[in-house]
């Protein structure tokens, strides 16, 4: 090497060659700066804590609607008529090797997922107790939604990028975790110290615009919902349910609603006309029966013409889920879709009720909580409280329907005060005496109040009452007129559905050992009852 360098030195080019050598040797050192271009310029790696919030709040209101397309068929809120056959979901089945029904799974683990972990850490470090409270509430909402739909879920091992197979946790654990998280949420949302700041939270919180006290009420509401699911358990404490409801929403003004800006596909209401996701869906005979007087002694619900869709001949009919397609109904007798049209209508025309682009989609409502209170009080034996909560539930839901139908200038006219008063005075709907109140009434009116949006809770109610339990008080089914489809999906083995299978492209492909441990690979796994609905 020495002789080589000496030779260089003798040539006229020595400086240049020396420069090259020095350059080559110095390369690695200089490389570091030059190579430091691997920070993704298309997005930041960390952002201020509140910027994580909007996609999660979007999920809070929207995600349930995606799986609602399917749960809505289990619960016979709607039916998808097709020629000569029935869809798998209308037969209480599922779509094999499809992610249909897996949106909650996706969004709890992915949209919340690491984002929520990061937001929680930041909010905690920056002492933003209000945002931290919202974070705990979101986490609780995720597990509550997921376990109510899927039963056993991944909780303890979740959100860990170093693992590639995950063990499932029991629903019992998931429920207790939801309670723990909601208590943490309540604890933090009560705080006013630290960096609690309504303006900071309100910058991205388009549900309550940063109002900590309303988030606090929502946390109590979610706690009430959770505790009220224990009706079949010995642990059921109706007094605690009522106490939680009392600390939550006090009027429709507290409703947790998300407004959709409607500027592009993803920020338009999933039920909206522009999205067109419900073109093929039609109302069932069951839901029409609850509102057209079939069940409740001729009391025609004024909400029917504001929520449901008439056929072109103006009559409100529901489809029989055991008859393929529209059956014998003529074209003018076939109910329109929920937007109010026989076919996919023009984009600029008005929609109906929640089927409008910019409607404010509920996450939880005052009416819903009043029905939860009514059921708990009824079970506690406090029938007077039950009746007043029940009446308040119907009344506030009528207001809710009117409010929603004006969110986006939908076509139905508002329910007048007179119509409302007449309806509430009908004893087939609201009994004069508290002693006459039945579970059938409470649960049916709760079903109406949650129809089209509260899918998980509707399904939970139905599963808690085995779909077709008889209420001894009324002598009718708790959900009168409901009957499982006669032609069940082949894999069901004759059993009715109790859960949705975990997301196919997450679990059935990549976490089969985890599923196997809970019996999830069985063909009829979706008919296995969930823990909370079992005595």
């Amino acid at each position: 090497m020495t002789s080589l360098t000496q030779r260089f030195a003798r040539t006229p080019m020595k400086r240049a060659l020396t420069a090259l050598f020095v350059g080559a040797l110095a390369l690695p050192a200089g490389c570091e700066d030059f190579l430091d271009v691997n920070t993704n310029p298309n997005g930041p790696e960390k952002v201020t804590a509140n910027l994580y919030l909007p996609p999660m709040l979007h999920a809070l209101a929207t995600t349930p609607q995606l799986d609602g397309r399917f749960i809505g068929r289990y619960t016979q809120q709607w039916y998808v008529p097709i020629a000569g056959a029935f869809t798998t979901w209308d037969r209480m089945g599922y779509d094999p090797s499809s992610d249909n029904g897996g949106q909650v799974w996706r969004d709890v683990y992915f949209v919340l997922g690491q984002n929520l972990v990061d937001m929680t850490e930041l909010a905690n470090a920056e002492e933003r107790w209000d945002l931290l409270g919202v974070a705990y509430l979101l986490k609780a909402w995720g597990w509550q939604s997921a376990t109510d739909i899927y039963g056993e879920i991944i909780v303890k091992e979740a959100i860990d990028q170093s693992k590639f197979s995950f063990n499932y946790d029991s629903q019992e654990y998931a429920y207790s975790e939801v309670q723990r998280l909601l208590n943490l949420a309540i604890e933090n949302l009560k705080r006013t110290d630290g960096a609690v700041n309504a303006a900071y939270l309100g910058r991205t919180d388009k549900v309550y615009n940063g109002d900590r006290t309303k988030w606090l009420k929502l946390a109590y509401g979610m706690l009430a919902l959770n505790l009220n699911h224990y009706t079949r358990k010995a642990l059921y404490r109706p007094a605690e349910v009522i106490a939680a409801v009392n600390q939550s929403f006090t009027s429709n003004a507290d409703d947790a609603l998300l407004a959709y800006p409607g500027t592009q596909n993803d920020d338009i209401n999933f039920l909206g006309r522009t999205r067109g996701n419900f073109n093929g869906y039609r109302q069932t005979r069951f839901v029409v029966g609850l509102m057209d007087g079939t069940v409740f002694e001729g009391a025609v619900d004024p909400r029917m013409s504001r929520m449901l869709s008439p056929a072109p001949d103006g009559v409100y009919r529901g489809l029989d889920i055991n008859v393929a397609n529209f059956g014998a109904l003529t074209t003018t007798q076939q109910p329109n879709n929920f937007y109010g049209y026989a076919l996919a209508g023009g984009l600029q025309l008005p929609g109906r009720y929640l089927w409008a682009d910019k409607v404010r989609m509920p996450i939880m409502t005052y009416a819903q909580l009043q029905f939860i209170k009514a059921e708990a009080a009824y079970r506690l034996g406090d029938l007077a409280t039950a009746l007043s909560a029940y009446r308040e539930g119907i009344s506030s839901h009528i207001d809710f329907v009117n409010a929603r139908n004006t969110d986006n200038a939908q076509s139905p006219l508002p329910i007048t005060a007179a119509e409302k008063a007449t309806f509430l005075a009908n004893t087939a709907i609201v009994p004069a005496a508290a002693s006459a109140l039945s579970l059938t009434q409470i649960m049916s009116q709760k079903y109406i109040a949650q129809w089209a949006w509260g899918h998980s809770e509707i399904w939970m109610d139905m599963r808690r009452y085995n779909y077709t339990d008889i209420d001894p008080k009324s002598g009718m089914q708790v959900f009168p007129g409901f009957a499982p489809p006669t032609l069940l999906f082949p894999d069901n083995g004759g059993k009715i559905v109790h859960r949705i299978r975990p997301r196919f492209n997450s679990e059935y492909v990549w976490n089969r050992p985890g599923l196997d441990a809970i019996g999830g690979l069985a063909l009829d796994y979706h008919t296995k009852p969930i823990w909370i609905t079992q005595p």
Partner: protein
Amino acid sequence: MMKKRVLALLMGTFLCASPVLAQQKTVTGKVTRDGAVPLSGVSVVLRGSTQGTQTNTNGDYSIRADVGQVVQFRLIGYVPIERTIGAENTIFVQLEKTASSLNAVVVTALGETTQRRNLGTSQQTVQGADIAQTGRENFINGLQGRVAGVEVISTSGVPGASSSITIRGVSSISGSNQPLMIIDGMPMDNKTLNSGALASDAPGSLTAFSNRGIDFSNRAIDINPEDIETLVVLKGPEAAALYGIDAGNGAIVITTKRGKPGTGGFEYSNRLRIDQTRGNPVVQNTYAPSGTTGDLLNAFSYFGAPYAAGTTFYDNVSGFFQTAQSQQHNLSFSGATQDSRINYRLALAANAQGSVIPESDLNRINLTGRTGAQVTRWLNADLSAQYSVLENDQALKGTNGPLIGLLLWPQTDDARDYLTPAGTRRRITVLASNSETDNPYFSVNKNRVNAKTSRLITNFGLTLTPVKWASLKTNIQSDGYTDEKLIVRHPESAGVPNDNNGILDNATDVVRNLTAQTLLTFNRKQLTKNISVSGLGGNQISDFRSNVSGLLGRDFLDPNFVSANNTNVRTNRTILTQRRLVSAYAQAVLNYHDYLYVTVTGRNDWTSTIPTERNSFFYPGVTSSFVFTDAFPTIGKFMTGKLRAAYAEVGNDARPYAYRPALEFKTTSNGGYGYGFTGPNLALRPEFATSYETGTELGFFDDRIGLDLTVYRKEKTDQIVNDIRGSYGTGFILFNLNGAATRNEGFEATLRATPIEQRGFSWDVLANFERARGTVLALPNALPESYVSDTWLYGNVRNGVQPGLSTRALTGLFYLRDTIAGSRKMLIDPTTGLPLRSTAFIDGGYDRQPDFTVGLTNTVRFRNLTMSALLDFRKGGDVFNATEHFLTSRGLSNRTLDRNTPRVIEGVLRDGRENTANPTPNNIVVVPAVQTGFYSGISEELFIEKDINWVRLRDVTVRYTLPGRYFKARDASMYITGTDLFVYSNYSGLDPIVNGNTAAVGGSGGAGIDFGNFPMPRGYAVGFKLGY
């Protein structure tokens, strides 16, 4: 920092240079062959310098040299000769055609030339003229069959379709398997824009193309084949050893044409071509649509009653295709000074390519310049520039493409009548407007896939020869282009365009790749009498950058006005990608007795895409060549031969930003940030490939027969799999993980023969044989399967790979079969009599890898007439005929004509006894016409056609050289060329060479998945060439 360093280096080389003075004189002479035939274009170079010249058309040369210097006379295909300058002032040289191809001069890595005998690895050279004569606008398409081990798959037969090229099979499960393109020693971008760059393809969007519905050209299409002098395919490990990590899949080294002394002047050539579609798709016209409501069909299903006698049918299918007209014009002006101190070439080319599909075409203009000058005795400067402008219009492909619409359209309706009197889409079904598949004419007239690209590649090189034993060469290259895409999906077009009331995409990809390379070459140095050594060292610094600005407009105001300004809802998206590389490398060649060569290489790369602590990696290579017929002259009397062996490793990096996720702006309500699909992997490390290769080159009968055999094995370990899935329990959907392993093995053989060689009549044969195998050995974290999601484009079949399967396997929801060894009977649903299908993606034994391929070129010369034909043979390899599955499910395939025939599907009932010794054979009679599930639920598996073979006449050219001086031309010839004139294949579809995706998709991609793709057309071209 680094830039300054490079500049300093360059400045240094300029400033320090000073002329070397010595006694010089001018030597002139003539170079001839076969006695008196002058040889033009022979390079006459002073050994150990860049100083040199070339002979003119009369074979004359003139060069200044010192007494004692050695002059080399080299011409590709001839044995080089050296002469030492003595007292004489003229040197006449007689060059012999290489008795052995081993002595032929070839281009090797880094733009160096060497004698073939040196090479320890397999490489093959293709003459630019052979590619250019095929008249294909994308030179990649001219390579199939010309090189053993190279496989070219064009996406479709539409002008501007992307072509993927792989050398020695597929080894990367998810990344690119394409070789590095080198032009004049520097890297050339051959990107096919991924549709993921479009704003309409933003993660989670419903308007995504996912590389299925559209195709963009691979950017090698910007190069005019007429500008290529030679093209060398480096197949194996040596490519990577010297070209670095991007050449892990081999390299294609293009040398562009230069001016030569004497041959200068103007040259004009043209080519007029017509193309016709090769074979029309066939659909049944026995059974009418399933039902009608008034004049309208209920659906595009054809399970109805037989057509009434006397029904009028329109020949929509063959009426749709048109005869394409294309033309090419090439004008060049080139030359060099007599002493070759200055050479230049300027070329202008125009290429207007028509299509057999209405409204598709491609237009390209190329302006090329290359000049070199010997500035002083020790300084040589070289400047080249390729400028191209290209515009391309394509039809949509796949589900929303015109082919599917064409096949679905009822033959009782005239498809040409596609508009209502009001100018809107004429509807013929009662289906919702978003579910009625587009009329094919509507599809091509109202939708647009347009690309406008302008590109400039400039390469500036300086070579310094300060001393006789070394030279220093520095090149700086800029490869930059602007690629503007405009995609319009008309508001009335079925599917998502209709849902969104029209979708318009604008995307501009601004690419700027800069590379600086410095090479220090040490000339051959005699260590002892028999041992000599030569070497080189160098470094390369690259900066690759792409900035795609995308705009998505939806909801058209005026349905027919094309502009983003006409859209009601707009979103934009910017994707900036940057990757930098720094490399240092060295090579030493030991030569013993001119018959044993050992080459040792080492390279270290530093990449920006791997975490800093692991971003530096070194890899070595050793190759050796043993010319045994020179070592043992007794054998050498009868033949020439050499043995080769090579071993090399190569590292490879990840794609940019692969290990730490960034947050994405979310388009859900009220914006905000959230993670993208891909999770973090801070432990990401480079992947490594280890290759072994051995082979032999043999020549017999004065080299009239030559045989080149190669066997190789490559193992890629710790392979990075992009976008592999896992449980969402991780918090993410996709990961970029190390841990896959693949093994590629193969055998290549090239046979050259000249069975006849007489004055005025000769016949040459070149046969290239390849057999390649790629196997997946492992997947990261023992995950069961990995697939590239874009390939899940039709039904439930995708390019899934599992350990033990081929790297080009297909997985799907295939039929369930019994588990008894050797039985594999289908399981039948006891209630319906129809087969049961898996609900998970399983292996069905399908492999798209051919058993072998052969490219056979025959060249016959008779006096002034030359005929050259390339036949392409393939044996084996599966192709998924998704189009046929689609037609079957709609009752349009001829295989549904027996729909009224009762049949029992062979298999066993799934009644609990299916896996016992006594299963219940299926005895349930099914009549497909009645049981609609027979066709609608039919597994795609039945349409994966096994062992597809073909014989394809890729191209044939007959050229007639006009005797005398026609039109006073120095050189005049006429030619007729045919491309893809025939394909004999057992494939039932239109063309087995298709890609359901585009060349942008990684891994094995969508090649061999045929859905709604147009075949390569049959072309006939005539042209002439005049040289002045």
